[in-house]
């Protein structure tokens, strides 16, 4: 699996996700700078990491979504290359339009930083195949703008098409229908606020995030 991690000014989980990918796939991902215009040849997985790209200026993810490399990412997503956006990466994906809806300021206005209980709603996606449907897992969140909102028709469509990948089992940020992560229509783009890369080995205090990367490896390498 040839993964690429996109690095924006202000990304701060790029190395975490790179370590997770290297541990699981055995190959170092390419770190691709936001001003690049092309992905390395043969890239078959793209990660948009967490952080505060461009200082969250204007809106979280807004500037990053318009940076040069994102054209290549959007093209690749259109060709079916799997793309994951974690936290700020999820915000970038909604700002590009690759995923519907928007991530707004947390309803409680506070930055939320703690492990949260999640339910795996869809275990059929290429990101979640190693989880059981309905399984409860614990993954940390760390965000100020994680309040997922979309119009009711979009929410119904997401639910009806099995595109809600993860749902919070507790109140975290005011998200509509407690949505924590969603898939695009084709199923090759996942955005989620929790940080699976922060729980991949026992020393992290949990390993519930590891299977996401293992599932990807299995699907992408197959």
């Amino acid at each position: 699996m040839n993964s690429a991690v996109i690095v924006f000014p202000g990304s701060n989980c790029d190395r975490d996700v790179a370590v997770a990918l290297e541990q699981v796939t055995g190959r170092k991902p390419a770190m691709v700078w936001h001003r690049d215009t092309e992905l390395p040849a043969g890239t078959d997985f793209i990660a948009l990491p967490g952080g505060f790209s461009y200082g969250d200026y204007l809106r979280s993810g807004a500037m990053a979504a318009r940076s040069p490399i994102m054209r290549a990412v959007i093209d690749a997503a259109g060709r079916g290359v799997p793309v994951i956006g974690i936290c700020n990466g999820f915000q970038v994906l909604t700002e590009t339009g690759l995923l519907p809806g928007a991530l707004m300021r947390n309803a409680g206005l506070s930055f939320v930083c703690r492990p949260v209980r999640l339910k795996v709603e869809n275990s059929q996606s290429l990101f979640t195949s190693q989880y059981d449907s309905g399984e409860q897992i614990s993954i940390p969140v760390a965000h100020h703008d994680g309040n997922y909102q979309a119009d009711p028709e979009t929410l119904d469509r997401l639910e009806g098409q099995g595109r809600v990948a993860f749902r919070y089992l507790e109140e975290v940020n005011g998200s509509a229908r407690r949505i924590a992560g969603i898939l695009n229509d084709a199923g090759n783009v996942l955005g989620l606020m929790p940080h699976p890369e922060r729980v991949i080995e026992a020393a992290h205090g949990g390993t519930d995030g590891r299977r996401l990367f293992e599932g990807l490896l299995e699907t992408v390498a197959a």
Partner: protein
Amino acid sequence: MKARVFVTLKPGVLDPQGKAIHHALEGLGFSGVNDVRAGKLIELDLADGTEDGAIEDMCRKLLANTVIENFRIERLEDA
């Protein structure tokens, strides 16, 4: 020429910041505030002759997220 772009949350979109401001106003003893909505004002200094369509394009492509926000453009008289 200059233009101002007002970016506001669409009606019905929850505005936690507006709510917090509302509570703070009440805490200061200001009564009679029914609701508060917070938005953004962006001032643009533009080349003379910039067309309305170009400014609208800027709003749609970057300045506003039209999933949740509306925008209004106000051209200012040349100073």
